[in-house]
């Protein structure tokens, strides 16, 4: 990518900044078992990095997710759980 003079950016360009490296030590796991597609997780995500269309399709984008846990807390079906960042390596 090119850095312009004065850091000029155009609308919609902010996703070039992958900010997921700031994540806390936990991250959400979307179980995709009891999801009713209520969209609450996506609406409450402060990063706007949860996407889904239908039941059991919702997933976060780890390039931006900060691990705040709001999605797991708000989910009415307890279908999102927070897991330690290192879990996959174990």
């Amino acid at each position: 990518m090119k850095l312009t003079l004065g850091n000029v950016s155009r609308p919609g360009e902010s996703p070039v900044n992958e900010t997921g490296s700031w994540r806390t030590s936990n991250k959400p796991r979307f179980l995709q078992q009891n999801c009713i597609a209520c969209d609450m997780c996506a609406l409450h995500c402060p990063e706007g990095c949860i996407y889904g269309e239908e039941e059991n399709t919702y997933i976060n984008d780890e390039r931006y997710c900060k691990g705040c846990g709001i999605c797991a807390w708000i989910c009415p079906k307890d279908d999102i759980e927070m897991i330690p960042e290192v879990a996959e390596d174990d």
Partner: protein
Amino acid sequence: MTRQMLQGCRAISEMVTLCRPQVVSAYPITPQTVIVEELAQIVADGRLKAEFVNVEGEHSAASTVLGASAAGVRVFTATSSQGLLLMAEVVFNIAGMRLPVVMVNANRSVSAPLNIWNDQQDSMAVRDSGWVQLYAENNQEACDLILQAYKIAEDHRVMLPVMVCVDGFVLPHAYEMVDLPDQEDVDAFLPPFAPMYRLDPANPLTLGAYAEPDKYMETRYMLQETLRATLPIIEEVARDFSKSFGRPAHGAFEAYRLGDASTVVVAMGSMAGTIKEVVDELREKGQKVGLLRLIAFRPLPAAALYDALKNARDIVVLEKAVSLGNSGPLATELRALFQGRPASPGIDGFVIGLGGRDVTMEDIRGAVSKAQEGAVDAEFVHLREDLELEGVNA
């Protein structure tokens, strides 16, 4: 060209008018006030087609010209002292956003105590902001540097703001003969501003966007590299200026009787006139003395300064500023130039003329002879001896 006897403020405002800025915003502060009063009158009279934006303080003045420059028009502002310090936050932003703002700073001391007279502590306080800083010796040069400042700032290889520093009262309030160029010659020298990026509702963009740790350093590196690459452009614009207007422009510094000089005075701004008198006087007595008058403090022409000073035995730095707690900023930087290099002149630092104290020929003679005797660092010249200074150990 029209030679006229003008007050510095008037000459500067006329030169700014010739450069056709489209937005001028400023807040009055002594000794800059008359510059922008004149400009307000010129705009009111219809001689300059510009918006003159009255604001409630210097932070807003700087923000106004920042916004207008980002919208793609040529801008001007001026300030002094506390005004520059109040602008400081925006001053850094203007450079970081790569906006070619031109500002005249009528150099004045900083508070406290309140003092409205000249020294250069105000502009030194923002030396690290990313602006090009040029210091004028007289009103003719102040005018000439304003025109060159726009040409340097708006060059697409540069796109940085330029501060033209004029010693408060000594220049803006003095009457001198000044050659003001004709409009058509100015227009030929300085084409209309062509922004590289500009704010436009039809094509939205953000200037100075957020940069995380993975990009911020690169943006500062870009500023650093561009400022260094601006040195030859300052020289190029000075050559173009001389060719267009038939008057010398010195570029980053002026060498005065420097050829065989073993003692070289280094200074910036208006006191150079008095120093030249002393140099001439000492030359008549057979002393090999010269003056290097620095015009571009930022970017510092380090390599050229080394070459110009390497044959000197004593370098006498006279400066109207001090980095409190260390030495004078210019003396410190000159010492760094010679670190680890073959030439190793003595570099003596004197702090002179703070808060409008006169810089006399006697002061300059005294500093030169003191420097020739032994090492001097941050010595305050001509301190009163009849005052008891509480808290200072005698």
